[in-house]
């Protein structure tokens, strides 16, 4: 079992069109580094200067990681990570 990461349409150019990829790591940051090995260029779209990019939202089991520990948030096998571009409602 690994960690499931859902990728928004706009970033699927980095995953050969896959809407979901898998990775490992003990933190979100490590997970992104792991994904970078197989999906080069993806990490840079998500992370800038050691922090999540402003218009990218990441959820761990549906909770916004900015309210957990950001890139240092612990992750484990079976977790579901969702990446979405910032789109407002209202």
């Amino acid at each position, binding site marked *: 079992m690994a960690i499931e990461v859902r990728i928004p*349409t706009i970033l699927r150019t980095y995953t050969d069109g896959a809407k979901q990829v898998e990775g490992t790591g003990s933190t979100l940051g490590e997970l992104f580094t792991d994904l970078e090995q197989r999906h080069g260029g993806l990490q840079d779209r998500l992370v800038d200067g050691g922090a999540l990019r402003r218009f990218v939202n990441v959820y761990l089991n549906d909770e*916004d990681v900015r309210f957990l520990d950001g890139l240092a948030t612990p992750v484990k096998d079976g977790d579901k990570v969702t990446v*979405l571009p910032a789109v*407002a*409602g209202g």
Partner: protein
Amino acid sequence: MRYDNLLDSLGHTPMVGLPRLSPSPAEGDVRLWAKLEDRNPTGSVKDRAAFFMIAQAEKDGLLSPGSTILEPTSGNTGIALAMVAKLRGYQLIVVMPENTSSERRLLLEMYGAQIIGSPAAGGSNEAVRVAKQIAAEHPDWVMLYQYGNEANVRAHYETTGPELLADLPEITHFVAGLGTTGTLMGVGRYLREHKPGVKIVAAEPRYGELVYGLRNVDEGFVPELYDESVLTSRFSVSSVDAVRRTRELISAEGIFAGISAGAALHAGLGLAAKAVADHQRADIVVLVADGGWKYLSTGAYSGTLEEAEARLEGQLWA
């Protein structure tokens, strides 16, 4: 209750307990409450923001009879503004995503508003972008801009927040849908000032892929009003969870609410379960932003959950 006119009847909405949905409804345990914002002049929480934004614009001398107001909206703000515009003699033009329910369109037209549709892909981001473009081309029009207008937040700081605390001094959590962020910022700031330790929780609707179909990541948009430090947590809620909970509100408590209320309830139920597990007392208020009337055509209230989910795919359901 008696008022001189409809506009004066704004707010002071009921807070009702949810004894069947609450894990332990007895006082001193874990209770859920719903603040019924459909009991506002045009039927949604947006009446508060709309009235305050227009009042401020009038005070600032920006509006006079015959003025044209322009606003990006997925529906409720447009409807609220349309009513006030009608009464005050303003023209209203709304920019609204095409993937919103037909009822919203009908209500806007009924109040005399003009609608400019924005592409479904990109949701409200696109509506904002198109509205900003049109505003630049028509400098004499007034864009109140609910995503950045402090009067939106102030409406909740001055009315919604105080009502909540007056009705439920023992409040521990406030949960609402996240859109412009006005409700959460206004209520959040007020409650945090008066009730240290209170938790302010956002339930963010998670739409289908189409709505997130931006052309590039730089088309991402965060409302200017949003101040992350006011929130305690933020949850993403799928359409199927939102619809399931909206139906539970009807079947368990008799409350006919819009789908964003289901999203907020979903987050609220998660908070309640956590409080029970932690042996903590909780009084959790869930904001019901509007009634279900405008969403009947979406099919969310009939058929199986799977059918409802499929029908909502691609729609801006909150």
